[in-house]
C-alpha cells in the first residue's frame, strides 16, 4: 500500500495515488499489454508517416494508379513485398492502408462510444419515460439491417461526400446500441450508491452528477469496451471493403488489399499480395484486444496484478 511508505518518509503531506494513477501503474507492469501498446504505437506512427516512409512515393508509380509494367512481381530487392495484380507496390499500400483502417477504426469508435455513453447515461440516470423512449430507440438501432443500410447509403452518397467519411458515419450511427445498453446497466447499478444521493443533496445539478460522479465511476467499463470496439471496427472496415461496400477501391485500405484474395489464382499462387494485410490486421486486432484485457485488469480495483 502506498500509505505505509507515506508514513515512514513523511516530511510534507504526500498526495495519495488516485484510482487512475493506480491503474496506470498496474498497466505499466503488464508485459503483454505493454508489448501490444508498443506495437500499436509503431503501426500508428508508420501509418502517419507513410508519405515519408513508403518506398514508392506518389506520384510515380502512384499508389492508386495501375502500373501495367510491374504486375504481380514477387518480393525482391526492389519491391520488398512484391506488387499486386495492378502493379502497385504492396508495402507502400500497406503503409497507406494503415492510415485508412486506423482512421476508420478510431473515428467510428469515438462516435460509437460518445453516442452510446450519452444515450446510456441519460437513460440510466433519469429512468422512467426518458429511459423507455431512449431504450426503445436503441432497440430500433440495434435491429437495423446494418449491411443493407451501408450499401444503400454508400450508393446514395457516392460522389457527394467523401466515401471514407460516409463509411465512418454509417458505422458510427448504427453501432452505438450495444454501448448504450452497457452504459445504462452500469449507471443503473452505480446510481444506487449513496454517493449519488449525496451529490444531489450537496447541490449538484443532475448533469453535474452524471459528469462528475457517475461517468468517472463507469469510465473503466467504457474504456475497456472502447478498445474492443476499436478492434471490431477495424474488422468491420476490412470486411466491408473486402465486399466492395466499404472504402472506395481507389483508396488503399487493409480491407481493400485483402479483397484481391477473392481470386482463386491470387489466393493460391500469389500469397505476397494478401498475406501482409491479413497479418497486419490480425496482429493489430490481437494487440488491441490485449490492451483491452490489460486495461480491464488495471482498472479493476480487485485484481492483484
Amino acid at each position, binding site marked *: 500500500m502506498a500509505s505505509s511508505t507515506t508514513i515512514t518518509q513523511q516530511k510534507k*503531506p504526500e498526495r*495519495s495515488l488516485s484510482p487512475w494513477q493506480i491503474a496506470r501503474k498496474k498497466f505499466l507492469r503488464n508485459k503483454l499489454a505493454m508489448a501490444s501498446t508498443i506495437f500499436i504505437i509503431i503501426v500508428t506512427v508508420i501509418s502517419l508517416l507513410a508519405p515519408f516512409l513508403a518506398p514508392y512515393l506518389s506520384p510515380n508509380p502512384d499508389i492508386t494508379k495501375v502500373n501495367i509494367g510491374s504486375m504481380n512481381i514477387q518480393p525482391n530487392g526492389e519491391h520488398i513485398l512484391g506488387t499486386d495484380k495492378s502493379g502497385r507496390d504492396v508495402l507502400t499500400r500497406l503503409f497507406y492502408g494503415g492510415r485508412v483502417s486506423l482512421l476508420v477504426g478510431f473515428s467510428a469508435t469515438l462516435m460509437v462510444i460518445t453516442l452510446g455513453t450519452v444515450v446510456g447515461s441519460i437513460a440510466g440516470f433519469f429512468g422512467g419515460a426518458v429511459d*423507455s423512449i431512449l431504450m426503445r430507440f436503441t432497440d430500433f438501432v440495434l435491429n437495423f439491417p446494418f449491411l443493407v443500410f451501408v450499401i444503400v447509403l454508400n450508393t446514395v452518397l457516392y460522389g457527394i461526400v467523401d466515401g471514407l467519411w460516409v463509411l465512418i458515419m454509417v458505422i458510427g450511427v448504427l453501432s452505438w446500441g450495444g454501448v448504450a445498453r452497457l452504459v445504462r446497466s452500469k449507471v443503473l447499478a452505480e446510481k444506487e450508491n449513496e454517493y449519488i444521493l449525496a451529490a444531489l443533496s*450537496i*447541490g449538484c445539478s443532475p448533469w453535474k452528477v452524471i459528469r462528475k460522479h457517475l461517468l*468517472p*465511476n463507469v469510465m473503466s467499463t467504457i474504456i475497456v469496451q472502447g478498445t474492443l470496439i476499436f478492434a471490431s471496427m477495424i474488422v468491420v472496415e476490412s470486411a466491408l471493403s473486402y465486399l466492395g461496400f466499404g472504402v472506395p477501391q481507389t483508396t488503399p485500405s487493409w480491407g481493400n488489399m485483402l479483397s484481391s484474395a477473392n481470386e482463386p489464382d491470387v489466393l493460391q499462387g500469389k500469397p505476397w499480395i494478401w498475406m501482409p494485410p491479413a497479418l497486419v490486421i490480425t496482429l493489430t486486432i490481437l494487440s488491441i484486444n490485449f490492451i483491452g484485457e490489460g486495461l480491464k485488469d488495471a482498472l479493476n480495483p480487485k485484481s492483484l496484478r
Partner: protein
Amino acid sequence: MTTRDFIQERIDSLESREVLLDVQNLKTYYPVTGGFFKRVVGNVKAVDDVSFTIRRGETLGLVGESGCGKSTTGRTILRLLKPTGGKILFEGKDITKVSGSKLQKARRDFQMVFQDPYASLNPMQMVGDIIAEPILNYEKRNKQELEQEIKSLLTRVGLPEEAYYKYAHEFSGGQRQRIGIARALALNPKLIVADEPVSALDVSVQSQVLNLLKDLQKEFDLTYLFIAHDLSVVKHMSDRIGVMYLGNLVELASNRDLYREPLHPYTQALISAIPEPNTAIKKERIVLQGDVPSPQNPPSGCPFHTRCPMAMDICSKEKPPLKEVRPGHHVACLLY
C-alpha cells in the same frame, strides 16, 4: 445542579426557540407498477401521514424497525424524494413543491449524513475535493483559502490534515463517516438529517462518532433529525423522540417521558426489548406476535392492531390520530 435540572434547563431553552422544520401530514408513496405499459397497480405507503416539528438547536430522534419509513421520511424532508402529499415548511417557507435550480439553492440549508460510509463517498474523488464540492456548488472561492478551511474542518471532525490528499478507500468506516460529517458541515447548514449514521460502525467507534455529532451541535448550533433503529443510540442523542411503525408516527414525546412512561403498546414493546446491563433487575419482556404487515396493503384502522396485545374491536375500524394526551406527549392510540 443535578443531571435532571440540566435536562430540564435544556428542554426549557429549546421550548423558547423558533420552529425550524414543520412537517405536516407528510405522505410518500412508492408506486408499484406492473403489466405491459407499466401501469400503476398499487402503492407502497412508505410514509403515511406523518406530522412533527423540530425547533432550532433540537435533536429529534426517529426510531422504528427496518422498513417503517424513517429513512424515507428523512429523504423526503430533504426533497431527495418527491412527497406524495402533505407539506414541509423549512423556516416557514414551503419547500414541498420547489424543484429544479430553486431546490438546488434551498439545499444549502439542509444536509445529510448517510448510513453507509462505504457507499456514500465517491471512490474517484480526493477527500479534499469531496468536502470542497458542496462549497464550490454555491460559491466561487480562492483555492488556497478553501484548502485551509477544509483542512481545519478535517481537524475539527478528528481527522489529520493529510487526509485532504487521500482517497476514501484509505480510511476505516468510522473515519469515512467523519469525512461524510465534514461534507455535511461544509455548507454550515441549519438542519442535518443523520440517517442511521452509526449503524454500520463498530460499537467502539459508534460512541466516538455520536459524541462528535453532539459536540458539533453545540459548536455550530445545529439541528438534527436523527434516524436510528437502536433505541439506546437514540436515547443518547435526542431531545425528543418519534416512534414510527409502518409509515405512521405512533408516539412522539420527550426523551425522558418516552423511556420512563411509554404510552403506545408498540413503544412499550420496543422499550422492553432494550437489554438491561444490571442483571438484578428483572424486566418483563413484551414479545410481539407475527410480522410487520406489508406497507403495500396496510391493515385497516390502526396499523398496529394486528399485533397489538391490547387491541380492541374498534382498533380495526378506526385509525387513531396523533393527539397530545399529556403536555408534550403525543400518541396515536385509541386507548387514550
